[in-house]
């Protein structure tokens, strides 16, 4: 009895500790959101009344809107490429048997463990060799490499969980490989493809370190724009921009999760 009591107390203490960790994770974000409504010009405490003026200034700031445009274009472009490459690779890894499978898996996950700074340096140097300089194109290629492992992982996880019976049934009923893929496999993995795509969008939209190496001076994505603005001082406008980003980045996975669940339930 006393042992049971002991472990219940322990669980309570752990619970309190975990609540502390949750607060630790949420509080800094809440601080940014709170300060974005501060009327004061300093961008810091104390709060001097509530105001939306920094949002007005934000939406009138052309360079920030330009950064958003660059970021969105980049994220969509590289995610499209990463999704096409990633889906094909995932299918090959799960559905076909070949000798060097482990080596291939390791290669595909490599961008996850190599420091981004090194990836940044490497691509920058190598592309200069073939005459490509820091540019949007370099960003597009680089972000594709960075996002690829995430697409493969998501689609692979879904394919592994999918029984092969459906595909075998289609094949035995006379469908050829392409038809089987189009009519059976593709619809079944489409939620995962969408999930992988959204994951890639999030990775690209959030990336800053490698982007600093690859971007042409003068072109800014949203993160590098914020980074540049922070070098001068922390203005209330940055807090407003931060709040917009927080809402966007939280909404994207929420919508993604909802769509994916909706899709999979429909089948």
């Amino acid at each position, binding site marked *: 009895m006393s*042992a049971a009591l*002991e472990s219940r107390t322990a669980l309570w203490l*752990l619970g309190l*500790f*975990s609540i502390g*960790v*949750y607060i*630790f*994770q*949420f*509080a*800094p*974000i809440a*601080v*940014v959101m709170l*300060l974005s409504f501060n009327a004061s010009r300093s961008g*810091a*405490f*104390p709060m001097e009344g509530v105001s939306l003026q920094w949002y007005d200034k934000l939406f009138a700031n052309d360079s920030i809107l330009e950064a958003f445009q660059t970021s969105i274009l980049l994220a969509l472009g590289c995610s499209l490429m990463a999704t*096409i490459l990633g889906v*094909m690779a995932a*299918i*090959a*890894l799960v559905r076909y048997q070949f000798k060097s499978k482990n080596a291939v*898996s390791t290669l*595909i996950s*490599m961008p996850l463990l*190599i*420091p*981004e*700074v*090194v*990836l940044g*340096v*490497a691509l920058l*140097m*190598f592309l200069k060799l073939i005459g490509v300089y820091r540019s949007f194109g370099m960003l597009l*290629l680089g972000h594709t*490499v960075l996002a*690829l*492992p*995430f697409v493969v*992982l*998501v689609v692979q*996880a879904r394919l592994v969980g999918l029984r092969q019976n459906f595909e075998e049934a289609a094949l035995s009923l006379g469908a050829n490989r392409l038809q089987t893929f189009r009519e059976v496999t593709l619809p079944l993995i489409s939620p995962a493809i969408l999930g992988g795509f959204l994951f890639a969008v999030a990775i690209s*939209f959030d990336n*800053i*370190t490698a982007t600093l*190496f690859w971007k042409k001076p003068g072109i800014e994505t949203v993160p590098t724009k*914020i*980074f540049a603005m*922070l070098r001068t001082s*922390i203005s209330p406008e940055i*807090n407003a921009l*931060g709040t917009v*980003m*927080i809402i966007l*980045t*939280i909404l994207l*996975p929420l919508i993604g999760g909802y769509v994916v669940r909706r899709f999979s339930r429909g089948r």
Partner: protein
Amino acid sequence: MLSPALISLALFLVAPIIFVIIYSFWLRTAEGLDVPAFQFGNWIAVATDYYYWLGLYSTFQMSLITTIACAVIGYPTAYFLARIRFGNKALLLFLLFLPFWVSYIIRTMAWISVLGKTGAVNTVLIWLGLIDEPLKMLYNDFSVVMGLVYFLVPYMIINVYVSLDGIDRNLEASARTLGCSPWQTFREVTLPLSLPGLGAGCMLCFVLAAGSYVTPRLLGGPDTLFFPDLIYEAMISQLDWPTGSVLSVILLLSLGLLVAVYNRFMSVSDIYRSFAR
């Protein structure tokens, strides 16, 4: 099916990294041109410069502190999440990863408003009357570690959680029936079985910490020395590519060695598995 992805990776990942290694032996001429060569000048220049050794040491020291802090904070949380039977566990896990989705730069920047002179912590402490003068918490190694722990702790939690969640609960029950106290059960059964997850989490935290550029840059002070920052300075600010490539190879090799040693005892694929969750 596989070849488009493999060709892209070979072209834009493997070849560039090999090229960095080759470039580190190239010769920078007096006119500032880098010409293909095989000489150790760049390597010797870096190896004999005390500043770079200090940078590497300081980076690894801060990354190690970060990793330990992540383990101490992350393990109990993961344990709690894996063991509760009440409440909506999926919701709790989801909530944990909500801040994780928020842009990295925003989460890092937030610490300026939390730790700064007129930041949240100082404001609250002064208001409570605990201190009279604001504490100096920002722009030093402390704030760098704080920022690193903040963004890395979810990686630790998910890795430990996955391995704790996979433990057969009957093993713990048997240990209890055989007379173990709850603490003994944890120490002798649960903890050893969750070591792969803890190991994977530590590995990931260390590698990501030692490779970060933005956090030390934004939250560090004038004395903060961080290796990726040295690489950026050499590559982008000074356009000294031979030195930059030597430094890149050093960072890659030292972290790669760590991963290799880890992989000898545990499998790197554990890490990827947790990503897929």
